[in-house]
């Protein structure tokens, strides 16, 4: 029953809410009037604007200039989450094409990916816990924090924690999960994996995905909009 709900019923809702929500948000933003708010030093060319945005998004430069420990925590958190997210692509099939050429006698990429993923997952957990601790312990951050800040961060942490537990503490049948993900959108009855850590992780992740378009997690696409507004000359 729980397996059916989490594995067969909820994913349909999740996908609908996520796509609909993100579309609604982005549509609002893109149809609103766009004022000129140039903040110097600004960029004249489209290339220059994107270069600056990517530098910020990839390196968190403005945080680096002000707060080294926040930079370390937030950069590790976001980067490891991004890597973990990419790693999840392997659930949809065999190794991605671009990895295969790297396979050779002396380097077994397939065997390396699993421990790397595990390490990155644990890094995300540690960095996320640091960010939560910072929010609670540092007065200047605590006093500008709201329930939603804690809720969102806790939820992300819960997803990471259950994901790590899934890898570290339980005997994971990767083939079973791959088979499930390949058939989930075939609209035929699927066999939901029965691993309870998996169900918990998958449930948490879906709650997070559904919340994303309606929360400040939208800062992920939002930063491109806001940076563009102030960088454009």
């Amino acid at each position, binding site marked *: 029953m729980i397996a059916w709900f989490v594995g067969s019923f909820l994913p349909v809702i999740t996908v609908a809410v996520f796509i609909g929500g993100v579309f609604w*948000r982005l549509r*609002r*933003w*893109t149809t*609103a*009037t*766009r*004022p*000129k*708010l*140039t*903040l*110097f*030093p*600004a960029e004249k060319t489209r290339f220059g604007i994107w270069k600056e945005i990517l530098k*910020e998004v990839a390196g*968190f430069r*403005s*945080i680096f*200039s*002000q*707060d080294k420990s*926040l930079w370390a925590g*937030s950069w590790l958190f976001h980067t490891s989450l991004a890597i973990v997210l990419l790693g999840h692509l392997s659930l949809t099939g065999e190794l991605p094409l671009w990895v295969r050429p790297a396979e050779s006698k002396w380097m077994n990429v397939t065997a390396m990916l699993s421990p790397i993923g595990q390490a990155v997952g644990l890094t995300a957990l540690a960095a996320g816990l640091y960010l939560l601790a910072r929010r609670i312990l*540092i007065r*200047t*951050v605590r*006093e*500008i*924090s*709201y329930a939603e*800040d804690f809720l969102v961060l806790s939820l992300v942490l819960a997803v990471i924690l259950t994901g790590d537990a899934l890898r570290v503490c339980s005997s994971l049948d990767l083939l079973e999960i791959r088979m499930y993900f390949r058939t989930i959108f075939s609209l035929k009855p699927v066999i939901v994996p029965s691993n309870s850590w998996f169900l918990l992780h998958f449930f948490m992740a879906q709650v997070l995905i559904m919340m994303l378009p*309606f929360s*400040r997690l*939208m*800062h992920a696409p*939002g*930063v491109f*909009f*806001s*940076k563009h*507004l*102030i*960088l454009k000359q």
Partner: protein
Amino acid sequence: MATDPVSRYDEDIIKGARDLDNWARSLQVYLEICTHCGVCSQVCHVYQSNPDRRASPAKRSDLLRGLYHSQATPLGRLLKRYRLTESDFNNWALDFYKCSGCRRCAQYCPLGIDNSVITRKARAILHALGKSPQKLVATQNLIDTFSNDLGMTYEAFLDAVAFLEQEIREEKGVEVKIPIDQEADLLFVPPGSDLMTGAETLMGCALFFHAAGLRWTMSSKAFDGSNYGLFTGDEAYTRRKNKILYDACIELKVKTLVMGECGHAYRVAKRLMPFFWGTLPFHVVSIFTLAEEYIRKGAIRLDPSANPMLVTYHDPCNYTRSCGLVEEPRAVLKACVENFVEMTPNRYENWCCGGGGGLAVLDGREGLSAMNGSFHDYRVHIGGKKKLEQVKRTGAKYLAAPCANCKRQLGLLMQYHGMDVQVGGIFDLLGNAAILNH
């Protein structure tokens, strides 16, 4: 229930907030994506001088964020959890008039949120509710009668100009004519307050035009470039005041509008004017851009030994972060003085003087009913604290601040703290250093 102040406020605000659906992209994004990371608190001169939770830019912006989420998002409208009362708005007025809109937090925000835009929107709501500081409102009201912020009549303007000409004659021994209302290449518009308290700066500007041999004029209708609409968030007023400049440029058929030593006046002319009136049939430049060019070409002879004291430069926020005018004023200043020292940080990272966003003209409680203490105390103890420390470190004896509001704030700051530092413009120094043919 129309007489109940609370419900009246609610109605006004809901009416205003429904328009949030049509709010600009900037506000929608800024109000929806802040993660409260706290970087803005670390770079805000107000928070750094007084680490009070309400002084954090993110926390301040949350006031508007609360209204936005309750009125403009479907879920918020359903819950209606956020009802504002009159006393809430009194507190808004306090908080949003502690932000000087210097945009330093925008420079460092990892998400690119410009809190000054939020401050201005909140101030616009306050203005609509009649909760702007009285001094700003009174000044705004003057332009419909006098076309300037000073309440200066045509005769008074002519007198002020004649006084400048006489002073130049006495100090420099040359006859410099300040043309009024003549068709010319350049229309020169200083901040109007320079006519009352910035005579030295204006004399320097006149000497520059004279020495460079430019065909320039001032306008008896548009001699005041300042625009308090940028401070109160009253966009209709901003346009109305700006139209005076636009009309004068057309009437006098000038090719270039030259803005004097004033940060927000230059910003309004440079950044907002084309937005208001479309492509302009004239250029808008700062007098520094012009002076830098003529000094570089050697068209003006300067004797730096006329200014032997150690001079430092304060970057007005509106020049640097809002207009990118950074090197030109420096070049002019350096050509006029013998000893120059930079403060740190400078240029785009400069700390605000504490007088931005209209604060420099506020002294008492200015009709803000929840105000505890005066703007004067706030400016000298909190708003200007960072700048005071910076100036002290340079050891300079002259603080050049080419902006009427910066000058007003820094003058008060230095005087209050007993600093032996003269505050003035750059053209004051150019006037001293200019070598003229008799």
